């Protein structure tokens, strides 16, 4: 996953379509037509917009949900939480939205957010990622102050960037930041490609990258905890069923396996 750029195109297109007032879609596109809300109808499409850091566990859970409910299709688009919230505000079709951090939720229109079902599905902490051979010699947060290091952070407009800034400010560390990438996966990619000496990402990203990166944990005292709220905008049984799976025990264990903390 090195290609982040094309995300711009759907984002811009969605913004412009909405700007023209030509897309009359409301955020909740699926109507609750079934009287029996307990059993998935087995005919629907569940559209999920989710933070990039949730890519692995949500993909696995979606496949599992599709296998358990033949005929249901779960479509997931991963991206920066703020970009996705922006798209929802501009009228992009969505049934389920999972954000990294709660700050992006402020971008959702109030009426949309108020009617939605809501649950916290996971938590995450910030962690330093370095290339496996650790060319910069990073073993603690304080080491990031070395001006010879090339450090990459998420943009300050997205949750992972906000969280990283918070951690650095609290610790009084000013690293040599060479780039602020548009989302957490792009940030991590700069490390896996060896272009940066260190990046500040989520613990779950370090876990999912496996041997491609080396993680340097930040003590809880200096760290921040990021909450992953999930919102669902429809009472359609397919949608509710998927939301229940993610926030249930199976969902939690999949998320924990992927490096997240239980909610």
């Amino acid at each position: 996953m090195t290609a982040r750029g094309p995300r711009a195109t759907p984002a811009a297109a969605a913004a412009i379509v909405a700007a023209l007032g030509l897309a009359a879609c409301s955020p909740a596109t699926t109507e609750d037509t079934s009287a029996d809300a307990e059993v998935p109808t087995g005919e629907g499409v569940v559209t999920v917009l989710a933070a990039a850091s949730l890519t692995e566990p949500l993909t696995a859970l979606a496949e599992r949900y599709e296998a358990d409910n033949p005929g249901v299709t779960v479509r997931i688009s991963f991206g920066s939480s703020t970009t996705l919230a922006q798209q929802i505000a501009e009228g992009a079709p969505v049934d389920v939205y999972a954000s990294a951090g709660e700050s992006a939720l402020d971008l959702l229109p109030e009426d949309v957010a108020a009617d939605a079902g809501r649950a916290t599905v996971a938590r995450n902490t910030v962690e330093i990622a370095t290339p496996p051979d650790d060319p910069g010699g990073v073993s603690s947060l304080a080491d990031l102050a070395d001006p010879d290091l090339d450090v990459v952070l998420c943009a300050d407009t997205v949750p992972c960037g906000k969280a990283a800034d918070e951690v650095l400010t609290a610790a009084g560390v000013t690293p040599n930041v060479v780039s602020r990438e548009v989302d957490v996966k792009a940030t991590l990619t700069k490390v896996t490609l060896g272009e940066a000496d260190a990046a500040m990402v989520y613990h779950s990203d370090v876990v999912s990258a496996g041997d491609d990166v080396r993680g340097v944990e930040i003590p809880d005292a200096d760290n921040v905890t990021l909450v992953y709220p999930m919102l669902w905008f429809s009472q359609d049984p397919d949608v509710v069923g998927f939301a229940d799976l993610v926030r249930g025990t199976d969902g939690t264990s999949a998320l924990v396996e992927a490096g997240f903390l239980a909610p």
Partner: protein
Amino acid sequence: MTTATPGASPEHGAPVRRPRPGLSRPGLSRAVLLVPAGLGVALVVLPLVGLLLRTDWPRILENLSAPLVWPAIRLSLLTTLATVAVCCVLGTPLAWLLARADGRAASWLRAVLTVPVVLPPVVGGVALLMAYGRRGVVGAPVLELLGLRLPFTPTAVVLAQVFVSLPFFVLAVEGAMRGVDARYDAVAATLGASPLRVFTRVALPLAGPGIASGAALAWARALGEFGATITFAGNFEGRTQTAPLAVYVALQNDPQAAIALSIAMLAVSLLVLGLLRGRWLR
């Protein structure tokens, strides 16, 4: 986007004249051409109109003074000018040699140079990292010998822009130079002109308009470059955050600043293309 088309088509169908009840055959066949043509125009024009409509005009100056706007515009102007300069200096001789070569090697070279035109820019950015990154085939020795790191620098922005716009430039200029009668080369040579003098004194002036339009194309392509830049050069305000990157980032927390910056880019592009159209473009 499909919702946009039914609203637009009756307007464009209207000019078709109906001299008799029912469409005459020429009228009908003209409508058959006008409807798709009108839809095509609508698909291009409507997003631009949308951008203009959604702009908060009374506060556009305020929005343009958002902190990320001017560094991005300044960086975009500087890097695209550098890109055009590199294209002219390297691309013009290349276009000339290609225009006058007709071997198998030349057609292969032409095909290779066309690749960035069809390659997704992000893939280009990855390729640039593999070449000029800290561990790249060129980047690693450069870092080791000179201590220079290319990614995350304005130089990387220029490299990314050159990668995507040089092919446009070379293809456009080669076309113009093919249009220069080869017999002028022959006459100039018999008059004692070396190949270099033929290039500077005959090919360059005669292909001047083609070079100008090639430069305009390359500049426009460089100005809009996003994927290769963000992948290879990263995104850092004032250093590698060009205007398109700033638009993308600003869209996340300050959409009006993003729209204002888009309007500024649109204005600059139209201004430059308008000036060139008057002078050189046909």
